[in-house]
């Protein structure tokens, strides 16, 4: 019964959507907004990666909201998983020597790679979210390989909080200097140089630290025996 209803529902959805898909041919250029971003993106923002300039600058407000969503999820996870009574730690089986050594060797490399990804977000594919996720996966590796280690919650909370604050403050500085929230008030420099694109790299670095510490915090909260 339930299955039949579900399938009928799905068929209706499919038919409806395919009707409206006829208006959206695959592969045809459709938009003037995207066109303008491509043509004038470098001049406007100084970033050669147009996606980055859209994410951080043209639609930076979305990104602020998105960072907030992740922040909320991390807090909510803390709310749901905190316990009033502390149970004793379960005995942890240590990892084998090979895993341990491998993880310790890889961890700094992953951190460097993550940092590289978000520092170069305005030049190459990648950026704060991807870099942050890579850093968080480094911490995941530490949890697998060196099981008794834990991240320092104070430091990670600080990174979260400061990352968010830097984003908001840069936005407000734009309001002060240029009259618009998130206005790109720093010099844009020459395209394709590391120090270019004004506020974009700064914002992306802040996002990178924030996302990295938040995802690592989420993993830490989930993995903790409670």
């Amino acid at each position, binding site marked *: 019964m*339930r*299955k039949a209803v*579900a*399938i009928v*529902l*799905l068929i209706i*959805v*499919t038919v409806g*959507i*395919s009707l409206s*898909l006829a208006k*959206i*041919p*695959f*592969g*045809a*250029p*459709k*938009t003037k*907004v*995207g066109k303008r*971003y*491509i*043509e004038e*993106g*470098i001049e406007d923002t100084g970033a*050669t*990666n*147009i*996606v980055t300039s*859209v*994410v951080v600058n*043209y*639609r930076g407000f*979305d*990104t602020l*909201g*998105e960072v907030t*969503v*992740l922040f*909320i*999820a*991390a807090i*909510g*996870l803390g709310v*749901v*998983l905190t316990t009033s009574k502390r149970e004793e730690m379960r005995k942890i089986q240590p990892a084998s020597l090979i895993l341990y050594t491998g993880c310790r060797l890889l961890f700094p490399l992953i951190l460097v790679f993550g940092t590289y990804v978000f520092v170069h977000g305005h*030049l*190459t*594919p990648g*950026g704060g*979210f991807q870099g942050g996720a890579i850093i968080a996966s480094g911490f995941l590796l530490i949890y697998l390989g060196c099981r008794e280690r834990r991240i320092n919650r104070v430091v990670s909370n600080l990174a979260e909080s400061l990352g968010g604050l830097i984003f908001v403050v840069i936005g407000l500085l734009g309001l002060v200097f240029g009259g618009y929230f998130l206005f790109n008030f720093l010099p844009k420099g020459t*395209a*394709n140089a590391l120090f270019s694109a004004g506020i974009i790299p700064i914002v992306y670095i802040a996002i990178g630290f924030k*996302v990295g510490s938040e*995802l690592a915090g*989420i993993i830490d*909260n*989930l993995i903790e025996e409670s």
Partner: protein
Amino acid sequence: MMSFLADYIYYIGAFGLILIGFYIILIKHNLIKVIIGLGILDTGVNLFLISVGYITKGTAPIFSGPGIDSEHMVDPVPQALVLTAIVIGVAVLALALSLAIRLYQHYDTLNLRKIREQKW
């Protein structure tokens, strides 16, 4: 056949994922399974958004060197939207999983049919 596939294969993939995701959410009783369904649904929606922005024989919207023409670049806006949507998706999944862990501690089961504390 081939041209039909070339035109529609990404849409088929995207809406296939969306439908399977919906199916899992509607049918399955296990909470973790439902959350997996939510993840698949998200992936499908993201794939759909990206395929909306594609342009035939397009290039990525990155001016990585000199001499790249802007004529055939794909639309950057859906890509920015999907970056946002991916992060929102993982946030919802993480929260849902934490709730699942708590639910299991309270009820010792994840079967949503068996958890009927609250009635209509």
